C-alpha cells in the first residue's frame, strides 16, 4: 500500500495534474457554455475569467509537454486549448463598433490604398466606352453588336421622339418600381462580386467584363448623341450612374487587386500577397455592394419620378461630390496614425528577426560542439526548424 501512495506522490506529472485540474475543468465548462449559447450568455465575471483561464491552460500545456508522458492528458490539454483559442481569438463580437469602424475608416482608407488599381479599372472601362462611341457614331450597325437588344425599344430604328420619350417616361412610386430597383440591385451586385472573384483567374475576365461594360455605355451614348439627345441622356443616366459606375469600377479594381497578388506577388510569397490583397479586395467589394444598393434605389425610384433635367444633374453632381469627399477625405487622420503604427511594427519585427537569427546561430554552434545532444538542445533545434 505504501508503495502505491508513494508512486502517486513521487510523480511530478501526477502532482501537476492534481494541482491544475480545477482550472482546466472550469475552462472546459466556460467553453461548453460559450459554444452552446454564444459568448453573450457568459456573465461579465465569466468573461473576465476566460482569458485568464485560457493562458493558465496554455501554460499547463507547455508544462505537460515538457514533464508529462501521459499522452492522453497532453492531447486533452491540446484540444482544450484549441477550443478555448477559437473562443478567445475568434472574430470580435461587437458588430456595431465594427460597422462604425468600417464606414468611418476602413472602407475609404482601403479604397485610397487601391488608387492605382481603380485608375486602371477606370481606364479600361473608358477605353471601351470611347471605342464603342466612335465606332457607333461612324456606323450605327455597331450599336447592335455592342448593346444588343437588351435595351428594349431603344435602338437606331426608334424615332428620336421615341428615344426622348423613354428618358422622361413618368411612372408613379409603386411596388413594381421598388421590385425593379431591388432586381437591379441584386443583378448588379452579383456582376460586381463576380468581377472581383474572377480576379482569381489572373484578372483577364475582370478586364473583359469592365471593357464590355464600357462598350455598352459607349454604344448607348453614341445613339443618343447622333440624335442630339446627349444632355437628356446623361441627365437620365448620371443620377444613379455616378454611383453605379463607380461601384462597378471598384469591383473591377478589387478583381485587379487579387490578380496583382497572384501574378506579381513582389517580395512576399504568392500566398501572403494573395491573402493580404484578398482581404482588402473584400472590403472594397462590400463597399461597392452598398453603393449598388443606393444606386438601385435612385435608379428604380428617383429616376422614374423626377423628370426635371436641372434636378437630375444636381443629384448627379451631389452624389459625385459626396463620393469624392467620402473616399478622398474621410478617415485621413487615422491613415497617418496607422502608417506610423505599421512602421513601428515593421521595426519591431526586424529587431525580433535579428534576435532570432542570432539565437539560431548560437544554438547551431552549440549543437555542433561534441558535448552531445541533450534534451534542451534538441528543443532548441526543433524550435529553429519551426521558424
Amino acid at each position: 500500500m505504501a508503495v502505491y501512495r508513494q508512486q502517486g506522490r513521487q510523480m511530478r506529472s501526477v502532482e501537476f495534474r492534481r494541482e491544475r485540474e480545477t482550472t482546466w475543468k472550469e475552462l472546459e465548462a466556460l467553453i461548453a457554455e460559450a459554444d452552446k449559447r454564444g459568448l453573450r450568455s457568459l456573465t461579465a465575471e465569466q468573461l473576465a475569467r476566460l482569458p485568464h483561464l485560457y493562458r493558465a491552460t496554455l501554460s499547463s500545456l507547455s508544462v505537460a509537454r515538457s514533464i508529462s508522458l501521459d499522452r492522453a492528458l497532453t492531447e486533452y490539454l491540446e484540444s482544450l486549448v484549441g477550443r478555448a483559442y477559437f473562443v478567445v481569438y475568434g472574430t470580435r463580437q461587437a458588430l456595431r463598433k465594427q460597422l462604425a469602424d468600417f464606414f468611418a475608416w476602413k472602407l475609404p482608407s482601403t479604397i485610397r490604398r487601391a488608387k492605382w488599381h481603380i485608375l486602371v479599372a477606370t481606364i479600361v472601362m473608358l477605353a471601351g466606352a470611347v471605342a464603342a462611341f466612335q465606332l457607333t457614331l461612324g456606323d450605327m450597325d455597331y450599336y447592335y453588336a455592342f448593346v444588343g437588344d437588351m435595351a428594349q425599344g431603344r435602338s437606331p430604328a426608334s424615332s428620336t421622339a421615341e428615344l426622348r420619350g423613354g428618358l422622361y417616361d413618368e411612372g408613379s412610386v409603386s411596388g413594381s418600381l421598388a421590385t425593379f430597383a431591388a432586381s437591379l440591385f441584386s443583378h448588379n451586385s452579383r456582376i460586381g462580386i463576380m468581377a472581383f472573384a474572377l480576379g482569381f483567374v489572373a484578372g483577364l475576365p475582370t478586364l473583359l467584363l469592365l471593357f464590355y461594360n464600357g462598350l455598352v455605355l459607349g454604344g448607348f451614348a453614341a445613339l443618343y448623341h447622333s440624335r442630339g439627345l446627349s444632355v437628356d441622356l446623361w441627365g437620365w443616366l448620371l443620377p444613379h450612374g455616378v454611383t453605379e459606375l463607380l461601384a462597378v469600377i471598384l469591383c473591377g479594381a478589387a478583381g485587379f487587386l487579387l490578380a496583382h497578388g497572384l501574378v506579381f506577388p513582389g517580395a512576399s510569397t504568392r500566398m501572403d500577397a494573395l491573402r493580404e490583397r484578398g482581404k482588402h479586395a473584400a472590403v472594397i467589394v462590400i463597399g461597392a455592394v452598398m453603393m449598388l444598393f443606393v444606386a438601385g434605389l435612385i435608379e428604380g425610384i428617383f429616376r422614374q419620378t423626377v423628370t426635371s433635367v436641372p434636378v437630375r444633374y444636381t443629384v448627379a453632381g451631389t452624389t459625385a461630390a459626396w463620393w469624392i469627399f467620402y473616399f478622398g477625405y474621410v478617415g485621413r487622420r487615422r491613415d497617418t496614425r496607422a502608417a506610423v503604427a505599421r512602421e513601428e511594427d515593421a521595426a519591431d519585427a526586424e529587431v525580433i528577426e535579428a534576435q532570432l537569427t542570432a539565437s539560431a546561430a548560437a544554438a547551431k554552434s552549440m549543437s555542433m560542439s561534441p558535448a552531445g545532444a541533450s534534451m534542451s538542445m534538441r528543443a532548441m533545434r526543433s524550435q529553429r526548424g519551426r521558424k
Partner: protein
Amino acid sequence: MLVQQRAEVAKLVREIVTPEGVPIRFQLARAGDRAGAFLLDMVIQIVVLIAVGWALSLAAGAHLEGSWLTAVVVVLAFLLVNFYFAFFEVRWQGTTPGKRKVGIRVIDARGGQLETSAVLARNLVRELEVWMPLRLLLAGKVVWPAAPGWAVLVAGAWTFVFMLFPLFNKDRLRIGDLIAGTRVVMQPKVMMPPDLVAEHAEVAVHRPQVRAFTFTEKQLAVYGVYELQILEGVLRQTPDNAGYFEAIRTVSDKIRTKIRHEGHIPEHDHDRFLRDFYAALRAHLEQKMLFGKRREDKFSK
C-alpha cells in the same frame, strides 16, 4: 493498418503558433465533412427562402405581384444567398449551422484573429466557385438561350475544377481560403481522460493486503516513451470491451518475458501488474526527462 491510419491522420495535422507563442496542432477538416456542412447550409438557405416566400404570399394574398413585398423578398434573397455564410462565420466564431453540426470550423492560417474581412473574402468567392457555374449549368438555357453544347461542357469543367480544388492541395484549401488566408479544421473533442496512475493508486488503497509489484532499475531501462504510450493506449481501453482481458494477458506475457520478471501472477492480476508497470515506467522515464534525457523507444540509448 493502425500505423497507416495514423500516418494518414498525421498528414492532415497543421500546427499554428498562438499569439502567446505556444504551438498547438489542429487537424484539417476532411473534404467529406466540408461538403456535408455545405450541403446542410444550402438546405437551410433553401428552406428559409421557401418559407419566407410562402409566408409572404399568404400574407399578401393575390396582391403580391408588383407589391413592395416582392422588392423586400428580392433583396432578402440576395442577402441570404451572398451573406449567409459570412454572417454566421462572423457571429459564431468561424462556424455556420452546417459546420457546427459536422464539427468543423474556420480559423486564421497563422493563428491570429479571424478577421471579418477574411471571412467576407472567403465567402464572396463562392460566387465564382459555386453560383456562376451552377447558374450556367442549371439555368443556362434562360441566361443564354442558344447555349451550344460546349458552353455547358465548359461550365461543367469549371465547376469540377473549382469544387474539387481542395482535394488537389495539401492544405485542403478552397479558393476562398487561399484568398483569405484561412483554414478549415476539425473542432477538437474535449474529454478529460482519467489519470491512470492516480486512479490506480486510489483503487489499490482499498485493498491494503495486496502489495504492489516492484521493478528494478534494470527492468525499467528496457523500454522508452513509445512503448510507454502504446501501453497507455492498451490500458485506456474500456474494460468491458470483449477483447480487453485477452489483450491485457498477451501484453503482460510479452512484457514479463522481455524484462525477465520472475514469479507467478494470478490470472486476475495481469491488469494490476500492467498498471503497476505503467506507473513505474512512467515515473522512471519522467524522472530521466527532468534531467534532460528523453528516451524515445527501446532502440534508442
